[in-house]
């Protein structure tokens, strides 16, 4: 079975379309999206009389025509942003109310998710290629009903049969400095993972756990101070392990054939933990680049694994 695994596309329309096309491009049997489908930023396009303006990526834009606005919306969405045509009064409300920002973004995320799944279902129809979408810590439960349509299906927390294999998914992370939707303590993560140990054959088991194992080399992220500013050491970002100890313990104890992770965008790579091949393809969604891992497996063996930047 040929798997194409990606994670953390965070609202990038370009990355999602690439993911849908990746099946045919790489000859993959199954596409697995390891979570964090939802994007992060809301870009208001503010109308003032006959002109509109927006700020994105540190640059200011002004628009004279609706065609210009549409082109900007397309470009921003390609890179993961959600645009909203609005007026100065609503922007003031957003500035004063973080909860309103959350609600507004959630609505836009759900709309985009629905569009994406419809597109994927249409394109994958009759191709024999499946797309499994798991959640990540930046996603939220209300997205789940939108993730099942045709060849697209939700990869729920727990076990899922995948041909000759068992896919064990867990769309949660350990605690982060951002207090996101789907994070919990290491103890709770360990509890969620114990279900796995009782039910599956390791040589046919593939983990699809959003957070990578602690200190595996694929979980290094910049150290931050209390204001979330990147800290440097010797002029370089001071990289520290931030993965999950519960996931590390689970892999060490259970030794699945393959363990797929995301979450840490900078942690691109693959490594071995005993018999388990551990993979994190990383993420560069904000450049419209789809980082992934092309993996061929047979029961008891990972035949090949190649990291790609598609």
């Amino acid at each position: 079975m040929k798997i194409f695994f990606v994670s953390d596309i965070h609202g990038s329309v370009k990355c999602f379309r690439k993911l849908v096309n990746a099946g045919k491009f790489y000859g993959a049997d199954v596409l697995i999206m390891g979570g964090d489908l939802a994007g992060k930023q809301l870009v208001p396009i503010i109308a003032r009389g006959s002109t509109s303006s927006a700020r994105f990526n540190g640059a200011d834009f002004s628009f004279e025509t609706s065609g210009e606005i549409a082109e900007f919306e397309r470009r921003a969405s390609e890179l993961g942003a959600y645009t909203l045509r609005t007026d100065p009064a609503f922007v003031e409300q957003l500035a004063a109310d973080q909860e309103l920002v959350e609600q507004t973004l959630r609505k836009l995320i759900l709309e985009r998710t629905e569009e994406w799944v419809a597109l994927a279902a249409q394109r994958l129809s009759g191709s024999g290629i499946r797309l499994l979408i798991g959640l990540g810590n930046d996603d939220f439960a209300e997205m789940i009903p939108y993730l099942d349509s045709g060849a697209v299906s939700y990869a729920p927390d727990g076990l899922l049969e995948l041909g000759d294999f068992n896919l064990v998914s867990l769309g949660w992370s350990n605690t982060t400095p951002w207090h996101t939707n789907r994070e919990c303590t290491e103890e709770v993560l360990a509890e969620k993972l114990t279900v796995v140990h009782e039910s599956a054959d390791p040589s046919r088991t593939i983990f699809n756990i959003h957070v990578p194992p602690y200190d595996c080399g694929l979980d290094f992220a910049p150290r931050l101070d209390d204001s979330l500013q990147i800290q440097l050491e010797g002029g370089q970002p001071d990289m520290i392990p931030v993965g999950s100890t519960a996931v590390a313990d689970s892999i060490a104890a259970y030794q699945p054939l393959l363990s797929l992770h995301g979450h840490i965008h900078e942690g691109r790579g693959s490594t071995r933990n005993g018999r388990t091949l551990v993979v994190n393809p990383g993420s560069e969604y904000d450049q419209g680049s789809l980082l992934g891992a092309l993996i061929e497996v047979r029961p008891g063996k990972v035949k090949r694994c190649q990291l790609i930047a598609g």
Partner: protein
Amino acid sequence: MATTQGAHPTGEQQVFARRSSGLVRAASTTDASLVNIYVATFPIMVSFLLGIVLPFYGGANLYLTLLIAGVVAMPILITYAVASSIMRRSGGDYVFISRLLHPAVGFAANFVLVAFQIVFLTSSGYYFCLWCLSPLFRLLGVYAASPSLINFANTLVHPLSIFIVSEIFVIGFGLIFIFRSTRSILKIFRYTLPLSLIGLLAFAIGLLMHSTSSLHSNFNTYIQGASGVRNATAVAAASAKANGFSLLPFSLGATVLAITWPSFSLPYYLGSAYFAGEVRAGRRVQLLAGPVTALIGLAGSLILIALSLGRLGSGFLGSIAAADPSKLGLGGAPTYMEVAAGSTGNIVLGVLILIGFGSWLIPTVPMSLLIMTRCMLGWSMDRVAPDALSRVSSRTNSPYVSVIVVTVMSAVISWFWAYTSVFTVVVGAFGQVITLGIGCLAASLIPFKQKDLYATSPIAGYLGRLPKLTIIAALGVLGALLIVLNFARDPSSGVDVNTSPVMFWVSLGMFPAGVAIYYLSGAIRRRQGIELGLAFREIPPE
């Protein structure tokens, strides 16, 4: 659609973010810039200007040489800063060039960078021994009136001593990297960076607190204490004159030719723009960090030269550099820092100057190790190089196989530094400038190959029908080409086509060798069922 610079006229907040992971504030630009200046080691560059250009490039104006080199390097620096802010270079030039040009070109350019970086890496131990350790023991010996310390200082310029010190440098850092971690070798900067800055302060104080004649008199006393040679100033002047040295009138040709020496340092003030967060509010500030840091380095170099020439005199410094060192009873020509240390007449200032100067030589080793091992990791991850190169220690997460490979190669190259004269720091720069030129060529294509990224970046804009980035990048390619051509025609560079043809052609041949390795590796991987070309082939997004 128009892109404008600066804050929005109404000052309203324009981007809103959810509570989501990964949204961070960019690293402090000041912190990054300070280390960038340190890593680019401008006082070392000044040592070459005063030790080689002043005596041997008759009529060269050092200030103008620096400014011309700065003008040539600036488009390269701006291109890299802009390109890095648009396309993150987390994987280094390799990823950046592979995506925009071709994976074979990306690998070859990176292979060249690694091959020449090793020359830089191994130069540190060599110069640390000659320019810091030996003068330091000589200075201590003079003040302690200890012949054994002075003898030890003289011993340190012998090839065997240089080789041993170089090996300690290379293997020591390699072992720290393997058994401690990447963080540990970067932590060394916490101690060496302040020392290097204190050294510069001591240098300035030492020169400013005495008149020129007093400095010369102190230097005479220092040399007399070190070797017994009386009136070293006059002896050096006579020897330099016999060697053909004199202060010639201004020559534009010599001034331009001399850009060889600043060009091994100025184009490398890169790096600080890499740490942009995902919501990039402050990218314009970061955009400036690299080029502005280079300007600070340039200004620092000009100040060091002005202080040296103004207080010690160009005739004095030129004769000391041009004189036969044995006439002064020394094993090698003293650097401007040793001259200053000896001329202050103060042991505390002298020791601080020399330790500080030595500290400027240290960052090259860990930074080169990091760059080279990261490149090798990238090659291995993309299956161009053997998988073993990406093996990491389970205890320290260090890529120990890559580190061992680099350390062993460095240990061998160190022998060449100690026992032959085949390498100069310019040889190290030669291939790297080629890589920078290819990087600029790749960056010139961003507006065409990454239209959305370019259109939504803070520097998007056109002059006529040409994107601004493409114009700057084209100037960067031209700058890199000028530097390479200057290296190739300068007899002092060690890589010129006439007097060092073997080194020139070997250096130039590294690029096609890299392309050949890529395709050879591709053929081997294909037999294993892996298609190398897939690593960077873009999936159609439509």
